[in-house]
């Protein structure tokens, strides 16, 4: 296998490098990639969508259809993780964790159905055990609101600066993951329940696809945000900007919920009681 791998890699690599001889020099402003399609995005973004960040306007408008499926991909991944790992009831864990009280080391004992004899230095880490670390807890409690605030800023300010729905959604999701790591999974789940997460993840993607479908119902093409000017008091260019904002919010919600779902299912093997 190893030799085969090396052979395949060397052959492919040699072929790719051979072909790279024809590429335009690295960073060449006159390469076909910079001259053929892309100038319009840069020159017309203000005029056609009134969004200064060309990446956002291309992402959510010119090629908004790709982004809709990008959100769908992450939604599909969340649903897949849920479906593959989630265990609903009555299954016993294959391993148990014990914590050495003096050193804080964690041991894992893999014995199906059997418990270890009671030992004084070890405490079992079952679903009722909660870690307690004052520094970690306090720090995270202070940190999480700011992380979430920043995430909201990233989502809302994607028109003018780097960022947007996806990045903001990941940061929001990461703040909840941090909560689950620093405290425990059950208290994180008490803040935002599994059912809520599932509904959020589907609602986020549905906002995106629904915005597109709304444009279709309003008589224009799918995802043609200019049609939104018929129901919102904005001109067609402003409507594009508005449409971009709407879908970014949808992406943010979907990504946040999906990231948390994936983490919860991976970190608890689908039991959703204890995390890392």
């Amino acid at each position, binding site marked *: 296998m190893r030799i085969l791998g090396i052979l395949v890699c060397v052959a492919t690599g040699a072929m790719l490098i051979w072909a790279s001889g024809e590429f335009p020099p690295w960073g060449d402003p006159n390469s076909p990639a910079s001259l053929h399609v892309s100038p319009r995005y840069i020159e017309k973004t203000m005029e056609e969508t009134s969004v200064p*960040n060309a990446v956002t306007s291309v992402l959510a408008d010119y090629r908004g259809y790709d982004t809709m499926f990008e959100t769908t991909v992450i939604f599909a991944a969340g649903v897949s993780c849920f479906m593959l790992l989630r265990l609903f009831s009555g299954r016993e864990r294959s391993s148990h964790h014990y914590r050495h009280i003096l050193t804080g080391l964690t041991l894992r004992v893999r014995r199906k159905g059997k418990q270890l004899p009671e030992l004084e230095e070890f405490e079992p880490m079952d679903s009722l055990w909660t870690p307690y670390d004052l520094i970690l807890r306090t720090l995270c409690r202070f940190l999480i609101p700011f992380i979430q605030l920043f995430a909201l800023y990233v989502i809302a300010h994607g028109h003018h600066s780097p960022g947007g729905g996806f990045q903001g959604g990941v940061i929001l999701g990461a703040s909840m993951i941090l909560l689950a790591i620093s405290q425990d999974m059950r208290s994180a789940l008490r803040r935002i329940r599994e059912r809520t997460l599932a509904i959020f993840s589907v609602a986020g993607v549905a906002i995106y696809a629904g915005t597109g479908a709304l444009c279709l119902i309003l008589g224009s093409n799918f995802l043609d945000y200019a049609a939104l000017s018929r129901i919102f008091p904005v001109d067609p260019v402003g409507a594009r900007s508005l449409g971009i904002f709407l879908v970014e919010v949808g992406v943010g919600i979907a990504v946040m919920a999906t990231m948390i779902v994936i983490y919860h299912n991976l970190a608890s093997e689908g039991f959703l009681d204890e995390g890392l």
Partner: protein
Amino acid sequence: MDRILEVVIAKYNYWIYIVLMMIGLYGVIAKNNLVKKIVGMSIFQTAIILFFISMGMKKGATIPIIIHGQEASVRASDYINPLPHVLMLTAIVVAVSTLGVALALAVKVYKEFDTLEEDEILEKIRKS
């Protein structure tokens, strides 16, 4: 000699990207451990993303956010090509989705076979 140096300077970036891709590809094909294979897969995907990003690069240009106050006179050569960035945002999302599903599968495989080494798993299958 000068010509060779010129070619090297113009192209060495591409070569390093391709080397990186091949490291990842080797990881997927030849590694024995399933999580290592997943790491290799992610490296391969990220290297392709790097290759795409470098296509949009223009020397002497700035990031693709139109500077405030200059909206009237935008020249395309002043800003980096945004299209590869958009494509690669999508590709990053695809990469992390694949990673999530692959890790979930690896956890399931471990539950079933109690090991992550491919040869040991095949051995167990052959025995049963």
